[in-house]
């Protein structure tokens, strides 16, 4: 044996740290450097958030009181945010119900019943729909609901447009939720003699419900922040709508209408108050999503694998 074979055992990570050759030191150093540099990129994402929240909050918070949030007064010109909030709730209510009705069953059907090729095409279509620009959806809503159905600029036009916008997200989530039910659970259900409907209603939905709920919350978070479809189909009116077909407003439409107002700081402030409320609402929805999905993750790890 002229030279001893240095590779007499497997390398361990400690070998990396004790190897004094230049190349290894460079590799370790590079890795450490990257470990410092990459986290700094978080700042790129976080700094603008802080800037925007400060920009909005510093203008909105001084005047945002509980009275402002709940006031539906017809004689005060400004600081009447109760009306837009209620309108937003109403539009989101109709839109979410519609989106769930349209998307949930389709997602379950795609996941459970359809052959794979067809399911693949439908999933592609749903993803394409999710990628539609919001202004195109606004044009569609304007033509179909405002013009063709004759509903005019009203609550229901905006709600339906938003619903069509939110449907692919609910569809995709329902689909994902049911396809990610563990195989052995599904097989056990079918093996015990359950029919597809029984499986879906009794077993699959229990496992998939958290994820579907997450998807619905996400769709709501996306929907509540949309401006273009709403502005094109709903007039940013200032009254509480008395029917589904009366004009309504939306927080984003309110921001868009008032941010450049010539009537002075009071009216411009309305835009910032609405913006602040919107950010808070979306934050709450995100928190809800996190709670539900974290619980779901833990449960899935603990029980089913």
């Amino acid at each position, binding site marked *: 044996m002229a030279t001893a074979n240095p590779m007499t055992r*497997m*390398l361990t990570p400690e*070998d*990396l740290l004790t190897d004094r050759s230049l190349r290894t030191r460079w*590799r370790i150093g590079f*890795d450490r450097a*990257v*470990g410092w540099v*990459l*986290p700094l*990129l*978080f700042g*790129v*994402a976080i700094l*603008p958030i802080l*800037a*925007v929240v400060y920009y*909005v909050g510093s203008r909105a918070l001084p005047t945002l009181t509980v009275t402002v949030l709940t006031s539906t007064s017809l004689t005060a010109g400004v600081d009447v945010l109760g009306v837009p909030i209620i309108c937003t709730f109403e539009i989101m209510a109709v839109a979410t119900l519609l989106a769930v009705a349209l*998307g949930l069953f*389709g997602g*379950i*059907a*795609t996941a459970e*019943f*359809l*052959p794979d090729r067809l399911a693949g095409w439908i999933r*592609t*279509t*749903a*993803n*394409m*729909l999710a*990628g*539609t*620009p*919001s*202004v*195109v959806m*606004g*044009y569609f809503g304007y*033509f179909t609901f405002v013009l063709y159905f004759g509903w005019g600029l009203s609550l229901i036009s905006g709600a339906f447009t938003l619903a069509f916008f939110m449907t692919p997200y609910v*569809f995709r989530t329902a*689909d994902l939720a049911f396809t990610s039910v563990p*195989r052995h659970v599904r*097989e056990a259900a*079918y*093996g015990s003699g359950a029919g597809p409907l029984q499986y879906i209603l009794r077993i699959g939905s229990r496992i998939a419900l958290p994820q579907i709920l997450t998807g619905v919350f996400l769709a709501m*978070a996306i929907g*509540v*922040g*949309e*401006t273009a479809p709403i502005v094109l189909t709903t007039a940013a009116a200032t009254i509480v709508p008395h029917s589904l077909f009366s004009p309504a407003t939306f927080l*984003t439409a309110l*921001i*868009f209408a008032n*941010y450049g107002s010539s009537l002075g700081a009071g009216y411009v402030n309305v835009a910032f108050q609405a913006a602040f409320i*919107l*950010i808070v609402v979306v934050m709450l*929805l*995100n928190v809800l999503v996190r709670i539900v999905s974290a619980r779901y993750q833990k449960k899935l790890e603990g029980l089913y694998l």
Partner: protein
Amino acid sequence: MSTTAVPGPPAESQPVPPPSSPDGAPRTVRRRGAWILHTIVPLVPALVPVAIVVAIVFALLSLAGMSIGLSLTPFSFRFRGPVNFGWAFFGSDFAPPYHWEIGVFIVGSFLTAIPALFLSMAIGLGIAIASTTYLPRSLTAWLDPFVDLLAGIPSVVFGIWAYAYAAPYFGVTINPWLSMHLGFIPGFGGSPGLPTGEGLPVTIFILTLMALPITTLLIRDALRSLPRDLWESGLALGATRWETMRRVGLPHGMRGILSAGFLGFGRAFGETVAVAIVLGGASRYPTNFYGETGTMAATMFALLDSAYGNGQFLALLSEMAIVLLAITLAVNIVGRRFVSSFVGYEIAGM
């Protein structure tokens, strides 16, 4: 012979059909007509997205056709709008009401979206790698939701903030600095634009910020769903974390990373209100990096009100909507083809 029946297979047995679906789940067919229930009935809700896409296309085509004097029935469209939808439509002479060529806006949309895509992918990749491999869970538990909060800021708020703060900063500080120091790169030199700062740089900046949460989330999920053994095997061979990520993690997560790219691009390409507020829109090709240009989405949004009583204008805008939709769908389809060629079949949620 005993008269008690020996349990055995029945005389005429109905053979159970073998498992027919690829994932092995047995399909028990009980009644002869049950296939209707199991295939046609689920098809109805499943076709909802298809129906919506078809409805959108029909609606836009009808809007384009209807506004040139046809009757109000939505399906009486014709491919003969005032701009003929020929190749001339994609020229650069946009001068309503004489010339309706929208090539400038198509190029403008791409000019703003593609750099934003690359930047947001790069930053998103960095954040996702940092979050999955370099930072302890105690930090990432609250940093990750923070980044996702970026997605929650409505685009109109982004537009207002960017116009009030980011654009002047770009116009007064960043653009001149870039023009001075990067001027040797063709396109980056020349006049740094006006002090209001409305131009490509700030638009790309906010589009990056808007696409960032999507790309970060998707890349992070893709990296997290890699099997742990894969990751550990790389480290066990003596690679550093960076090397493992580069040679093992990223190639295996490429599918998720690419799909993140397509979604991010879709977001940046179709962004309407923020671009309308910050960039406005100008119907010309920018002469250098700091110039103004227009995007399709912002133009469609800003000019719709002029089109209400004017059939020609409405037809133009709906034809622009068709082009925008077609490009978005084409990018989506091509993208997924391209990505699934890595794997071989479509994964839900991609």
